[in-house]
């Protein structure tokens, strides 16, 4: 079994499934309950469109806001500003019933499969619950659907696994169950948060292959969240690079990997290792410092305190707008001001 890269940018449909407009997710910081002392600006002005059947990757360091973005899209956080439009409807205005409907349309694959599965429930129980919640009353129908999904994630023979508890499964099998649960209600969108980072190299490829097969079979849209750029090209068509709550560069996968423009993207790529025996003889280039505080983000370009290419007088003062350096490749950096 193999997985080829890059993903051919097949003529994905031009129907927008999910549209994120100028999204801001701020968390209040309270001081002794007396009032708001400030905000953690986890997501600060993010906009993008996700087409039907398209896979995108959101890449960035821990703390860059990618998980907050994902949780907001899942309807777990309320945005402070901006809109998330799914299939033409704004999810932040949803009523309880609409939210329940929305959650059958969106599947979620967690990072740590063991943590994501309740330890005291069997595989069957874990997969049955979403069906019960979704109102599938007939027991036989539920079981049939469970079997079908188990076959889709290649947990066969199905009967060997139905009565197992999560701890009796290997990491790869646990992740397959998490994926099975995510696709159980036939969602249109799958949000995968570092779905393979906890797995061994070979199992990682197995799970990525499975996710890609499922995506193609069901024409799923996928948001793949990761810090590992090397797996991205096997799975996504576009990359969004996120830094300090903002998307600082976005474009087609090959364009970003072969022709990156933002100094932060350069840094990410330079830090991504490949098995080369020459690595022993050199040090990796890493930008100094740590990601900025999201409570008081730096003025101007948020990367400027760590940037080697800083244009003094501009980068500290003005927020860079998006410059389109090639078709659909947009970078927020003053270096590309024409």
């Amino acid at each position: 079994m193999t997985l080829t890269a890059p993903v051919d940018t097949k003529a994905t449909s031009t129907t927008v499934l999910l549209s994120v407009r100028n999204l801001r997710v701020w968390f209040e910081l309270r001081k002794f309950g007396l009032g708001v002392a400030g905000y953690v600006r986890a997501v600060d002005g993010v906009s993008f469109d996700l087409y039907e059947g398209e896979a995108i990757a959101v890449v960035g360091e821990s703390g860059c806001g990618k998980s907050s973005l994902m949780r907001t899209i899942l309807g777990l956080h309320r945005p402070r500003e901006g809109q998330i439009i799914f299939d033409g409807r704004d999810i932040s205005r949803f009523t309880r019933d609409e939210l329940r409907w929305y959650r059958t349309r969106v599947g979620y694959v967690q990072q740590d499969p063991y943590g994501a599965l309740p330890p005291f429930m069997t595989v069957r129980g874990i997969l049955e619950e979403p069906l019960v919640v979704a109102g599938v009353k007939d027991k036989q129908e539920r079981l049939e659907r469970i079997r079908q999904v188990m076959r889709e994630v290649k947990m066969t023979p199905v009967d060997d696994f139905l009565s197992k508890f999560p701890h009796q499964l290997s990491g790869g099998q646990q992740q397959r169950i998490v994926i099975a649960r995510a696709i159980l209600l036939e969602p249109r969108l799958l949000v995968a948060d570092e779905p393979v980072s906890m797995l061994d190299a070979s199992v990682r490829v197995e799970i990525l292959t499975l996710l890609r097969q499922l995506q193609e079979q069901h024409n799923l849209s996928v948001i793949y969240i990761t810090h590992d750029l090397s797996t991205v090209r096997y799975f996504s068509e576009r990359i969004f690079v996120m830094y300090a709550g903002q998307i600082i560069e976005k474009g087609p996968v090959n364009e970003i990997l072969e022709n990156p423009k933002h100094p932060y993207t350069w840094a990410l790529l330079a830090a991504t290792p490949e098995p080369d025996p020459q690595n022993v003889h050199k040090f990796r280039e890493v930008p100094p410092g740590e990601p900025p505080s999201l409570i008081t983000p730096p003025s101007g370009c948020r990367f400027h305190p760590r940037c080697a290419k800083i244009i003094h007088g501009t980068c500290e003062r003005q927020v860079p707008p998006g410059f389109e350096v090639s078709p659909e490749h947009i970078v927020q950096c003053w270096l590309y001001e024409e």
Partner: protein
Amino acid sequence: MKNGNVLQVEDLYLYFATKRGVVQAVDGVNLALPRSSAMVILGESGCGKSSLARAILRLLPRNVHTYAGRILLDGQDVMALDEDSFRENVRWVRVSMVPQAAMNALNPVIRVGDQVAEPAIVHLGVTKEEAWEMARRMFRYVGVPEGFLNRYPFELSGGMRQRVAIAMALVTSPSLIILDEPTSALDVLTQANIMNTLKRIKQETGTSYILITHDIATSSDLAEHVAVMYAGQIVEVSNAAAFFSEPLHPYSQKLMASVPRLHGDKELEFIPGRPPSLLNPPTGCRFASRCPLRFGKCDQDPPTFRLGERLVKCWLFEADAELAYPDTTSAHPSEQRR
């Protein structure tokens, strides 16, 4: 005398007794590590690589069934030492360890400075003031600001805590440090930073490393020698340059084929099936059931063959190689004992 080697492991066995039988976690391992060099031990979860690390440091749980073989540190057989002298003269004095997920294992209610100073007080018998001075030096070394000595673990980021764990292993200036997955929970930039730090320490102090990981790409940053472990046994030992360009054992080849690359159009492969249970491993080659190059002879346990400097445990190399350990009897340690 093996003068050139900081560590020499000969026929090391570590079996655990469990309710379901004897788990053969480390099964006849031979390794040699030249002074001031770094070896990476690659393998999937459950292949026994962490058990090997624990066996070298004699950090054993209670259910040990068999613990046999020879471990030579700078030519001295430390297996012969009793527990007290091992603790006084070897553990953390000559060999220390950064255990898996060390950054989450720091004591949350003790200042990190005290935690780094403690090994020096316990193992070197220095005063508290001296130990703090040593801790301060180590902090500078691993790149943590000195002011952080007085902080508690929760006040540090993941990368900083990982550095503190490395400082704890370094403070007694051991000649060998065992690093068990030192970067697996960190994101790429932090990972690159830690790897740079480890490299610098090695250059400046001549410390040797054993790096245990499943992350092949990252391991190439540090490895001069590569040992591949499968189901409790070492199946290949090679220098890094030769290994990364041309792995010999079919398992190593498959592992390399599963590493995602940033560029090029190489297909990603995974290894179908799962590693055998260590409760009842197959009698022949343990990889045979998953091996694409399997042939008749693979029902018999292959000996380790020597090809120039490289060692490989696979029948494919019988024709053009000599036996690596011709005088080793294949008698089982448990049988030897009885």
